[in-house]
């Protein structure tokens, strides 16, 4: 209906395909704008924000001892029962986990274990590359969890990466205020 109310100028525009020309000009502009592609995993990868709930890790205290007191609260609160803790008494008489296994295949990354922990021993980090060919490899033991990288102070940015994703590289980003997804997009 709006067509009948158009002015003569619009009709002239239609005759000379002004709208088609506008579209072509727009795509031509976009063609020479920067692309927003992140070349993962060839060149760069996304480091999530520190609030991200990725792969679990166990913390150590100042003396290098494992912080976990094997209270099994995390195993209790876990909604999918994927944490298995077996306690033992070490030579100093402290209660420590002999076995601390997380089945990451079943884990839903809710972060409740982190909340429940009275000793601030377990947390969910920023690592997200742990796909595997076998579900058995996804059961992570105590020593592996201790070796996992902790939280980076900053996150939300693109860091250098390489194809070998099995290496745990943690690079601090300079992007303190997060990644501006619209940075490269032309706004007209």
């Amino acid at each position, binding site marked *: 209906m709006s067509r009948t109310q158009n002015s003569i100028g619009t009709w002239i525009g239609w005759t000379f395909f002004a709208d*088609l020309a506008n*579209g*072509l000009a*727009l*795509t*031509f502009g*976009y*063609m*020479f*704008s*920067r*692309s*927003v*592609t992140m*070349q993962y995993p*060839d060149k760069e990868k996304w480091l999530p924000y520190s609030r991200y709930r990725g792969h679990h890790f166990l913390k150590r205290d100042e003396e290098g001892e494992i912080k976990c007191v094997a209270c099994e609260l995390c195993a209790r609160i876990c909604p999918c029962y994927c944490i298995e803790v077996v306690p033992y008494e070490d030579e100093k008489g402290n209660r420590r986990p002999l076995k601390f296994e997380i089945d990451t295949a079943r884990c839903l990354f809710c972060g409740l274990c982190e909340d429940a922990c009275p000793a601030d021993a377990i947390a969910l980090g920023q690592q997200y590359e742990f796909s595997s060919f076998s579900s058995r490899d996804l059961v992570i033991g105590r020593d592996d969890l201790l070796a996992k990288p902790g939280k980076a102070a900053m996150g939300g940015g693109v860091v250098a990466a390489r194809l070998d994703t099995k290496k745990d590289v943690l690079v601090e980003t300079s992007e303190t205020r997060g990644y501006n997804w619209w940075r*490269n*997009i032309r706004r007209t």
Partner: protein
Amino acid sequence: MELVVALGLIVFKVALLIAFLLLLPLPLTWVERKIAGHIQQRLGPMRVGWHGLLQPVADGIKLLTKEDHIPAEADHFLFKLAPILALAPPFVVFVAIPFGESVSVLGNEITLYVSNMNVALLFVFAVIGLEVYGVIFGGWAANSKYAVLGSLRTCAQMISYEIPMGFAVIGVVMLAQSMSLLDIVRAQADVWNIVYQPIGFFVFFVAGLAEAQRIPFDLAEAEGDLGAGFHTEYSGIRFAFFMVSEYVIMLLVSVLAVILFFGGWNGVLVPLPPLLWFALKVAFFVYLFMWFRFTFPRYRYDQLMAIGWKVLLPLSMANIIITGIAFS
């Protein structure tokens, strides 16, 4: 002896032409995907070779090694014939296309065309019309509803668009007083035909888009509503034949647009080798085709018909009348 040399030269030229046309779609697919990527702010192929340059080779190997599948209920003879029918005519057309006047190699003048027909334009339009049989047979033989719908659309589209396309070039023929493509280019030595024939060029180009079945007129394959249109059931090397045919026709329409309306190998201002001028102009039109593809949406079927019969046909006829009155 002279006959043998002349014959050998023709065979050599034809072999060169075929090799060139068969290999050209490889870089063209890469260019098309790169243009698509950058228009959509992606990078396009990046992983195979430097900036994905070897991607077409990888695709070619993939297509060659894929299973050559023929549906059980398909018409086997037509199914196998269709890709060849679609591939051959665009190659045949290039026999009549001149790429330049001549170059001297070892003291001999070698012409840059296989044959200088006096009815080249007629030949081009006659042979290019045959390509549609490959599409129609392919769609029919596959015994799939998507493929049949695709080939039906192609059929109607070709009828609607070859008439305006043929009429659009009559103005050019009237200006050059010849149907030989060589004479047409020579007649444009001073002023290109686009100056006298803007309407003719517009009709020719739009009809050429439809002829090459490129967006916005790619209703035959319309991946949104027909799967892949007429080549839904094709796989492997037969599918590659259709793809090569599509690219060669795109090239052909670009070449024709350059020869008929943009002065062929006649340059302006910058003195470049004639062949380079020609290649640059053709490259521009090929880019235009790809640029269009990633800018415009597809026309609806009834819009396609309306544009063909209600806009392009009267425009092309008016162009003939105007040209006739103005240059008589």
